[in-house]
């Protein structure tokens, strides 16, 4: 089962290594990890997707909290969330196939960002499923190159409690955050 963690960390050198090292050391395989700036200059935000069961997810959360530079961990799996992945796909084309590929890109609301005599590059943003769908239909034409950013995720609406103080341990059950400290 895929678990998606949103991890707020101090924006300091080496923090990514600490997080990545933790997953390696405890024997969890990272499916996808993205990291970037947030609205606060001293805080970075990671979205980490891991294939594990619920006990494994709890262990990951608790161990992430043991890292001194980790500010907050949320396992947002099963919550109402917006999840987005971005891909650029370079598809081989001939003058005959070009309109077909353009049509497919348009159906998937992809943007054509580069056109060359023998290829088209489509940029697509969406859920992983949507991107997988586009890849599926353009594959027969020949995918020359593909790059994906990995998932970034955010809870919907007003649920984001990033500005609020983290919950106490005994609030764990209500908030769904098992080991918030």
């Amino acid at each position, binding site marked *: 089962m895929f678990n998606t963690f949103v991890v707020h960390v101090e924006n300091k050198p080496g923090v990514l*290594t600490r997080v990545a090292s933790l997953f390696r050391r405890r024997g969890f395989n990272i499916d996808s990890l993205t990291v970037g700036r947030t609205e606060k200059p001293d805080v970075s935000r990671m979205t980490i997707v891991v294939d594990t069961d619920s006990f494994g997810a709890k262990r990951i959360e608790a161990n992430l909290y043991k890292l001194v530079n980790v500010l907050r961990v949320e396992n947002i799996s099963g919550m109402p969330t917006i999840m987005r992945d971005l891909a650029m796909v370079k598809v081989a084309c001939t003058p005959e196939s070009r309109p077909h590929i353009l049509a497919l890109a348009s159906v998937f609301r992809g943007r054509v960002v580069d056109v060359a005599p023998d290829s088209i590059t489509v940029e697509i943003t969406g859920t992983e499923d949507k991107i997988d769908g586009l890849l599926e239909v353009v594959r027969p034409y020949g995918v020359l190159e593909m790059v994906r950013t990995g998932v970034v995720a955010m809870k919907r609406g007003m649920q984001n409690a990033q500005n609020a103080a983290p919950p106490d341990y*005994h609030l764990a059950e209500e908030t769904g955050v098992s080991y918030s*400290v």
Partner: protein
Amino acid sequence: MTGAEIIWKSLEHEGVTTVFGYPGGAILPTYDALKSSSIHHVLVRHEQGATHMADGYARASGKVGVAIATSGPGATNMVTGIATAMMDSSPIVCITGQVGSKLIGSDAFQETDITGVTLPVTKHNYLVTHPSEIARTIREAFYIAKSGRPGPVLIDVTKDAQQGLCEFEWDAARPQLPGYRPDLSPSLDEFEDALELIHNAKRPLILAGHGIMISGAMREVLELAERGNIPVAVTLLGIGSLPASHPLNLGMMGMHGEAWVNHAIQEADLLIALGMRFDDRVTGNLASYAQNAKKIHVEIDPAEINKIVKVDVALVGDLACVLRDLLPRVEYRAREDWFSLIHEYKGDAAVRDIQNLPDNGHLYAAHVINDIWRETQGRAVVVTDVGQHQMWEAQYYKHEGPRSLITSGGLGTMGFALPAAIGAKMAKPGAEVWVVVGDGGFQMTMPELATMVQEKLDVKIAIINNGFLGMVRQWQEFFYDKNYQSTPLLSPDFCKIADAYGVLSEAVSRREDVVSAVGTARHHLGPVLLDFHVEQEDSVYPMVPAGADLRGMILRPSPIVETAQDA
């Protein structure tokens, strides 16, 4: 002030009086500044020794131990000691020199990425490149090392940070750790659940671990056991958390725990795990571990909950605080059936104990340790190494108080005993400190004898010399068809070694000479080395083979005398 001076000033502000270290190029500015400090520096003979000393110091006193080394090999030599402290939650701070900040990443002379190397074996670590960061970093390091679940923290300080100038403002150098919150407390509901389990249990058992000592919860644990009339089994590192002589203390559990303790675990209907982490040496086969028992886990580290054993109630928080809240509501139960069942498990185990068997002229390690226990009235601080002697010590030295057994449990680090004992003696100068060590482990860190002598430390060393890497030999005997591959061990004449260091010594090979040798050692002011030549192919019983069901113990042969002669 220079960064180097700030290092010492900060350590003084943290209450440090003693550090263990070894100088070198990248840490030289710091050593140069030592002249202006009141801190006593113990010159070790190998940086691994410095970390074990800091560890022994911490375990004996509960205070943070400090080790210092230079960059590169000095720092990498510390890794074993740091990993040892990490596994046993021992609070130490290691300060290493690093090449100049402009040289970092250039493969400079004696450059090692020690923060990278130690990342998985430290609670946290720092690379400091500017003198203005030193004071705050040291404050944070001490706070992290000793709070919550303690552990080692490493601070790597570049040479230019040590040399640079900066104002020293201790008060302004407050820790800034927004993500670090070590103080947790369980919810009221969880207390209710725990109490219900305790009151409904017919066959409860307390599993007492190292966390009791770390939290200082000895009195609370005693009260819980007495109030609820609940027997207690201890882990190796939990020895001393409840007096060995207390009637509710059943003894040590696990691989070399007493058979009745392991049977009690398997039959219990409730395990109350206090500051312990269900190590594989304790549980044996997990699939069959304590299947009849509900489990309550009181533990400060949330990551330990459900890590190995799934528990019914987790009380996450400081043990002493949690128990203080729980205790007033714990009710007494007679539990007669339970105690008589445990008595049944004990059976004839005591009769088969080597201490109760007739003297066959052979000297067994158990005799030696039992005599040391008797002669020291169980009041010594005993520091053991790793292997057979460590288990015999745990079985035959009856510890009455906390922090009186210092041993490497989680990592099982051979070579730990001698340097850790030096640290323990520095922390508790008034205590009688004994090293119990094998002939293999002793040779791993033997050079620290010089440190001990240079510091004029009155430490007594008992080498359990059986000419083998004994525990490995035992495994080879049991599980590898007696193929004693690379375990017979040639040792120097340890008495001559002692003599060379100016340490009084005596070799003992007869049972009747043990008491007098121990007596002589005790009455000599200064270090003494006793070389006990014991039965070579003796084994530690009982033994749960690794990964086996706790009931599948290999018991003491009956009578052991014949087995010894066969061998």
